[in-house]
């Protein structure tokens, strides 16, 4: 129990990490809302679904009230990252910061607020928050970690080993960018279609017998994304179309977070996901007309909530 960990952001992913890590080390949780922190201190965390766990955690909405951790997992949504990173400014100077956001650029947002050593992460886990203190573990899939500014592969391996010791699936990579891009293209192609159609990620996303089939659209979106990656000189870790096929064959339909956001009429991560892909496309001169169209539709759908 020597390792001291901070989980910053207690949504579904943060809650899953905190509850698992609390089985093997000292865990603090930084929340946005004081009432959320209070509930965690009083009731602890409960995980159901893929794992049944209860965990006691220390929690606060003020980083100044929490002890200095060796390792931080930043688990908020991309839409909340700038605010959270600013709140961390000036705190925990010797901690190593791990970003787990969708899309690209989280490392830069955090790195701008302090000179902490950084790790890059992507996670494929998913869960559904039922309350401030109860999260259902839906997909017990991998988390991948690679070194960022001021870190080396051994640091990423140490963080991955810690997650594994807590019962999670984790792997370290010398360079995370290829995996980040695979997930970026996957998310940009699947989450947007789910958000616009109201469909969870299910077998229709892989069906492409007819030109108007949804799978054909997803296929074309992924092809566009791959062209941008190739233009940016990124060799993908996994083929996003294979990821799509695999995920739709898993059985239970998965509700991407962007669909949950739209149903709750919240802002989505469209700027962090499709926006990042389009910015890269513009930078390297590869057009992405289908992603552009979906970006515009999702942005307009968000506007209809106001």
């Amino acid at each position, binding site marked *: 129990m020597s390792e001291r960990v901070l989980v910053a952001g207690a949504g579904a992913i943060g809650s899953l990490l905190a509850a698992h890590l609390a089985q093997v080390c000292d865990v603090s949780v930084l929340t946005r809302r004081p009432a959320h922190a209070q509930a965690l201190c009083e009731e602890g965390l409960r995980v159901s679904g893929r794992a049944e766990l209860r965990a006691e955690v220390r929690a606060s909405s003020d980083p100044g009230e929490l002890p200095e951790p060796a390792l931080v997992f930043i688990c908020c949504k991309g839409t909340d990252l700038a605010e959270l990173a600013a709140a961390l400014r000036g705190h925990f100077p010797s901690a190593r910061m791990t970003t787990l956001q969708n899309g690209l650029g989280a490392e830069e947002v955090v790195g701008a607020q302090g000179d902490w050593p950084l790790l890059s992460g992507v996670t494929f886990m998913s869960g559904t928050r039922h309350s401030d203190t109860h999260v259902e573990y839906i997909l017990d899939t991998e988390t991948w970690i690679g070194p960022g500014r001021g870190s080396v592969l051994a640091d990423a391996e140490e963080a991955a080993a810690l997650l594994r010791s807590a019962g999670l699936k984790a792997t370290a990579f010398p360079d995370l960018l290829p995996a980040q891009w695979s997930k970026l293209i996957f998310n940009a192609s699947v989450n947007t279609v789910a958000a616009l*159609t109201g469909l969870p990620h299910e077998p229709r996303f892989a069906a492409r017998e007819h030109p108007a089939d*949804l799978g054909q659209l997803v296929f074309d979106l992924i092809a566009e994304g791959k062209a941008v990656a190739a233009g940016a000189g990124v060799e993908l870790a996994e083929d996003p179309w294979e990821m799509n096929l695999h995920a739709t064959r898993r059985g239970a339909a998965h509700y991407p977070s962007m669909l949950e956001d739209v149903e709750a009429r919240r802002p989505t991560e469209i700027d962090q996901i499709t926006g990042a892909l389009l910015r890269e496309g513009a930078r390297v001169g590869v057009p992405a007309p289908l992603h552009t169209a979906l970006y515009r539709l999702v942005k*307009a759908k968000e506007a209809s909530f106001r």
Partner: protein
Amino acid sequence: MRVCIVGCGAVGSLFAANLATLPELEVFAYDLNVDHVAAINRVGLRLTGAAELVAPVNALTDAARLPACAFGIVATKAMHTEAAIAASAHAFADGAVASVQNGLGNEEVLAAHCARVIRGTTFPAGRLTAPGVVAWEVQGDTTLGPYEDSPASFEEVARLAALCSRAGMPASAVADARGPQWRKVIFNAATNPLGALTGLSHGALCERPALRALASQLVSEGTAVASAQGITLDADPEELIDYAARPEVAYGHKASMLQDVEARRPTEVDYLNGGIAEFGRRYGVPTPGHDIIRALVKGVETSWGT
């Protein structure tokens, strides 16, 4: 003279009630909405809004009871054309049948059952507010022309146009009615699904430059498909889109496809974007925008079953 409206929803009711004000016409209406038909037979068909009137219309849900009619005006949703005309075609053995429906392909379906077909396009719009009552919300012109493969005589077309005009629904007879039809189809296909996918009214979506640009992409694909067939649009759909966005025209109008999506009814996307894409394939004109829009709206429709 007897006239029958086939499909007495909002648009069908506008034709039925206005034509029934002409003393020389006996107007029948065939529709499957039992409550609407009963109310019409009990107290007449009532219009509010652009005109306030109550007109005597013989409404029925059993097409077998229709007498021989000189004209049929088909105003069903496009997916119901086949069933509606198969049941009612006997009444038009000596008559001419006009489609005033949305989308592409309706005349082909009518011609499989009727010898003399009129290609029509109509702009008036309304809403069924109660059984027997229709709010007339948008006034506009109707264009009628002989359907090329199975034409009514031009004299017949002109006679129907004159009847509509005298009844308060301005209509003109033209030799080639494809231009007005494609103009409306392109207008609808470029705007209705954007409203349906985002929840925005016509005016609100036109105010977002990125979404307005997406509409322009759909317009130019549609115009290219029309040109490839030698069809000259009678007006620029772009101007119609901007005109309709004015506060005094249809700024706040929720497209019928958005109304369908909100009520979880099947939409006409197959006959709008799907129709343009189908003609595009036939004439070798790519329609990537219409393909993705169709796939997304079909995805929305299937999400209601999951």
